[in-house]
């Protein structure tokens, strides 16, 4: 188990810069998730850490030791691939023991480790099967088992759940969280799914266009996004972004005076009486989930298309398409962003999700 230090990592493919200077340090035992839209460089960053890609500039330290030029096979990391990359001609047992054989570990020790990992992952009955005879979830577990038996310095996961169906994905996500709690290794996990990021991570690294947008715990990112990108990326449904003028009392510039955009999460928009309303919206679509309701509405801005605004209400709603609804934005949960998209935060007070 080990910490990781990245300094000024750059990666160019020809004239295309994929990573534009990444500085990151990950503590021993931390579960860090890289999240971002496709093409943001998150997988490349993981492969750079793994040693499967060389860097154009910058250096990588694992446990304080410089490994920038060290081959992947000598870095002592284990990786779970998106495609699982199980060796199709080997049984589950051989798949798991291959790395241990390469490390020159004695046979009885190999058997013991594979056995332990198989029991942990409920694979004991499948050890003599080939990957082709396993279900998607079982293959996933073999891929994780192959990493576990190594007892690696760092676990790397490259979108490991993306090939599973929704139900299995949720189940495997829980298992991964339990696994991290049990073996406590340093884990780096790449995903484009922000739900996975929120539920698994100790800290989330949001990447966009080869740069880190923000690093923080899931709730820090949710409650205090550093910029418009993070505000829009984290949270589902997305945060509502409105021009400042639209909201009464904010038009004059509010408290900060620099804000160009206001952000408010769907759960912080509440229906209210005409008198208190910041704006009146027309309901376009109602999604009843039973326990909660999402209202997709548009605020009348005078233009041909209204400004979309999503509202989350607890419980069930009687509203229907076309209804007009006066709403109020909860002031203590407003996020303000300047013209460059950066958050303006004069207040040291966290914009908490639940008051």
């Amino acid at each position, binding site marked *: 188990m080990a910490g990781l230090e990245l300094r000024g990592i750059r990666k160019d493919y020809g004239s295309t810069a994929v990573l534009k200077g990444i500085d990151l340090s990950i503590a021993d035992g931390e579960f860090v998730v890289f999240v971002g839209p496709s093409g943001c460089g998150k997988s490349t960053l993981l492969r750079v850490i*793994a*040693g*499967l890609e060389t860097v154009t500039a910058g250096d990588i330290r694992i446990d304080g030791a410089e490994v920038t030029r060290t*081959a*992947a*096979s*000598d870095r*002592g*990391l*284990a*990786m779970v*691939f*998106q*495609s699982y*990359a*199980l*060796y*199709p*001609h080997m049984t589950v047992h051989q798949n798991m023991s*291959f*790395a241990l054989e*390469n*490390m020159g570990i004695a046979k009885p020790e190999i058997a013991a480790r594979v056995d332990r990992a198989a029991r942990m992952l409920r694979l004991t009955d499948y050890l003599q099967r080939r990957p082709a005879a396993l279900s998607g979830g079982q293959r996933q577990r073999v891929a994780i088992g*192959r990493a576990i038996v*190594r007892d690696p310095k760092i676990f790397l996961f490259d979108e490991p759940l993306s090939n599973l169906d929704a139900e299995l994905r949720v189940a495997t996500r829980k298992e991964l969280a339990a696994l991290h709690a049990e073996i406590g290794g340093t884990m780096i996990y790449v995903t484009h799914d922000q739900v996975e990021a929120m539920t698994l991570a100790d800290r989330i690294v949001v990447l966009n266009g080869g740069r880190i947008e923000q690093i923080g715990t899931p709730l820090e990112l949710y409650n205090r996004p550093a910029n418009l990108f993070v505000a829009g990326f984290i949270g589902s449904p997305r945060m509502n972004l409105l021009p400042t003028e639209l909201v009464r009392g904010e038009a004059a510039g509010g408290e900060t005076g620099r804000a160009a955009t206001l952000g408010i999460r769907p759960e912080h928009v509440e229906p209210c009486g005409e008198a208190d309303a910041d704006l009146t919206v027309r309901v376009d679509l109602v999604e009843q989930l039973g326990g909660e309701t999402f209202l997709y509405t548009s605020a009348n801005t005078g233009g041909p298309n209204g400004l979309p605004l999503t509202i989350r209400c607890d419980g069930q709603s009687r509203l229907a398409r076309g209804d007009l609804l006066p709403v109020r934005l909860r002031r203590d949960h407003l996020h303000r962003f300047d013209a460059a998209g950066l958050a303006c935060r004069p207040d040291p007070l966290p914009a908490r999700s639940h008051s």
Partner: protein
Amino acid sequence: MTGKLRTGKLGRLLLARRGGASWHWTDVASYAYLALGVLLMFGPVLWLALSSFKTPAALLEFPPSLLPMAQSEVSVQGYPQPLPLFRVTMEDGSVRELAQVRRVGIVAQMVDPAAPGQTIRVPADRRTPVRHMALAVENYTDPLTQFDFLRFLRNSLVVTVVATIITLIINSMAAYALSVYEFRGKSVAMLGVIGTLMIPITIILAPVYLVVTKLGFVDSLWAVILPGAATPTGVFLLRQYMLTIPRDLIEAARMDKASEWRIYARIVMPLSMPALAVLAIFSVMWRWNEFLWPLAVLTKTEVHTLPIALNAFQGELQTQWHYLLAMTVVTLLPVALVFAFLQRFITSGIANTGMK
């Protein structure tokens, strides 16, 4: 049960139609075309196999017959040699079987084997030879005992097996490098390999001969084994196949602390089995049938391979066709067997490697 099943399958194979309940003219045309193909491809082989059992006389007779027939002969009392038997239509219209003593012009002197004392004169065009099916097994047994067939067989086997093993090892390593690694000049190297396909052996025969001579390989089997060990076809075939192995597997092996040799031996080679099988079959066929190059470098009889040895039956003045045909059949058998057992690898392997 199995017999029934087999006829059922064969019936389905031979009576399959385009769809529909009745025969469409395209069905008929397809079968006619396929039958022509079978005739063109297997006709010569069938002719070879049947002719290898003919006596020298039967081979030269005109009109030729497909089946190995020989004229029946009888020993007749009073004649030291066996006499050929004919069926003769007598002047009164009756048909008798007579043995021919000699023929003078258009008249043949015949004798009845049952009554050897009396000769009968018969016009030559009134008799037809009595023939029976006769397998000239001595075509096979004579060369196998007199001609050093086993030595040549051993030479051919050594050349084929050793050369195939070396070919597989060298070609797979080259293909691994050309498919897995990224390096400067990779495409040039690949083009170079493919480019050598355009150079026929006749052009490089003399220079390679000189190299082999300098290395002192002449009249040893290595002279045949080594020069052809790295084949561009093999490198290309294996490379194309290895390109289809997911890169994730190789990267996973690297993460698993496997050395490049181990990745080659434990991951890439087992996964390339279909392509290796195809190349092995090709290599066996090439080496087994190779003629020109061994003829150039193997001058001593004791190192001759089978195709060269067969050439010995073909003299400047006369050719011992009966032995040549029989030994050709023997030479064809091993490679035909290899092909019959491994042909499913060829079809699946060729489909997978994209080789046409």
